[in-house]
């Protein structure tokens, strides 16, 4: 009779460099193979939804910066869209274009981080990540010109944006849009056809379209499975119905597809920015609203396609100056629900990469 063997339960995190923050995975291993995964989170819980109930509609904008801290612009956009629906506020045309330009820049910045950290987890330590950070730095400099901050932007307000872009913003944006395709090509030269990357990511962590839809996965994770679903096309907010762009999709939904979709989305974002710069009209950037917005009693749901997926804010108003309830549908959190299906059966080394390719941000998971 053979000796009895037992599975071993290991805690991965919360202070593990490849868990993207303070996130704990209780993994049950049979030797090298993952049997079961139990995500444990809440280490970064700050009670954003509850805090929002005690702040006015404008003050909540500052809280949304801190949800997904690598894409604050799209968080702002999702929130102000919900408020505008709730209170029936009109947005000037120029503000809509500025919103789209800034959120597409943010999408590029966020995808650069996702790609950089994926490489970091593959073992290409620091150098490719710094390539990504170098390009992101230029985008953050543009944000500094727009709104005086790089990460916690607080740029958008119900009824428009905070202030118009300065004169030196437009030449700098042009320069970036011209230089960015070369950067992306350089990044692709490092990764896309690299044999090590291919061996580690191709056919690893396959997510089927059916499973992704059942778990309401959104964003690049869903599109990598071959489902063409993008809120910018499905529910064109701001000016997305006036610009041309494609929705890149993957073939089978493995880790490599998730990476490839992100890189192609960066190119599409540049296309959108180029068209917006051409189309942008002159005029107001903010409609006149009361500082203490008092929306009528009711509720509204505003959602945008954030770099991670569908980010939505559900606001309930009781007629007061603060939301009665603020529910955040964060894509990172909901994309985590397929984690067990993704990881079970793979090896320890694959676990890190598959988890890295889901691109979660803990500020958004725990809220």
């Amino acid at each position: 009779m053979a000796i009895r063997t037992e599975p071993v339960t290991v805690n991965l995190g919360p202070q593990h460099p490849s868990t993207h923050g303070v996130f704990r995975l209780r993994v049950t291993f049979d030797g090298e193979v993952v049997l079961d995964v139990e995500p444990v989170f809440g280490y970064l819980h700050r009670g954003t939804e509850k805090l929002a109930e005690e702040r006015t509609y404008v003050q909540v904008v500052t809280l949304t910066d801190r949800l997904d801290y690598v894409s604050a612009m799209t968080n702002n956009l999702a929130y102000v869209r919900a408020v505008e629906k709730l209170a029936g506020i009109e947005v000037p045309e120029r503000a809509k274009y500025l919103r789209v330009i800034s959120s597409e820049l943010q999408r590029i910045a966020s995808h650069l981080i996702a790609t950089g950290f994926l490489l970091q987890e593959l073992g290409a330590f620091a150098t490719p990540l710094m390539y990504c950070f170098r390009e992101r730095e230029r985008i953050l400099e543009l944000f500094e010109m727009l709104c005086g901050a790089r990460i916690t932007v607080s740029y958008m307000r119900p009824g428009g944006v905070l202030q118009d872009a300065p004169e030196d913003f437009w030449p700098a944006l042009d320069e970036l849009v011209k230089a960015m395709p070369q950067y992306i090509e350089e990044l692709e030269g490092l990764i896309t056809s690299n044999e090590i990357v291919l061996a580690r990511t191709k056919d690893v962590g396959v997510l089927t379209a059916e499973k992704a839809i059942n778990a309401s996965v959104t964003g690049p994770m869903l599109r990598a499975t071959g489902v063409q679903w993008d809120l910018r096309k499905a529910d064109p907010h701001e000016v997305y119905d006036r610009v041309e762009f494609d929705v890149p999709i993957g073939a089978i939904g493995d880790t490599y597809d998730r990476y490839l979709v992100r890189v192609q989305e960066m190119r599409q974002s540049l296309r959108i920015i180029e068209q917006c710069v051409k189309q942008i009209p002159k005029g107001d950037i903010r409609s006149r609203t009361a500082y203490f917005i008092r929306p009528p009693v009711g509720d509204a749901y505003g959602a945008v396609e954030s770099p991670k997926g569908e980010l939505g804010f559900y606001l309930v108003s009781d007629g007061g100056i603060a939301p009665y309830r603020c529910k955040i549908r964060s894509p990172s959190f909901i994309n985590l629900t397929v984690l067990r299906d993704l990881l079970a059966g793979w090896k320890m080394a694959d676990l890190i990469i598959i988890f890295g390719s889901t691109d979660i941000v803990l500020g958004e998971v725990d809220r």
Partner: protein
Amino acid sequence: MYGAGMAKGLLVTMKNFVKPDRMFTVQYPDRKVSPTELAKMSGVGVFTFMRKNPKTAFKAMTGQMTVPARLKQHPRFRGEEFTWYEQRCTGCASCAKYCPLGIIRIVTSPSGEQVQEGQKYHLDVFDIDIGRCMFCGLCVEACPYDALHMGSGFEEGKYRRKDLVVTVDRLKSQPKHPSTWFRPQIQGKEGYHPHGEKDVTWQEAGRHEQPSRKHQEEKWAKR
């Protein structure tokens, strides 16, 4: 061909390795200086400088001399030391009301002075606890008289939390180098940068001229 992708990747790395202008490291808080630059700073020629201070010149040549480096920063940057104009402030406490964290404390008392043809309050306390501030700038946005402006610094480090409270005395005495964030009237000024030497006076910091008594009466009569 197997290995072609890897060669392509290595080529990218090699390209970045040899191109000097591809370096993107920002030297902070100190950067190395050459003897030429040092001479320029002291306003003499290179050879004169080398003859006069041979030790410093030698150190600079061997890369041991550093000077504090200032980061490139847009004038709109929302910095930490707030700029406040006593002459413009009426003590309305809009900033304190609009602060999402409630970290501004204002205590006023009637002063009897006439500012903007109305009663001005004397500000006994105007404390901003920047230890808890998140620099969202809502207070600056809310100020109806353009009295409060953002600063441009980011290097305030203290050992005690109470040292991080910006008091009214400090606000009064510190140089007036406001950020141009949400202040288009300052941004419109030619070549203004908060890092420069030039102060912005309280007249320049305002969005509008001081209204006269007649103007105000007309405005209120129309309402």
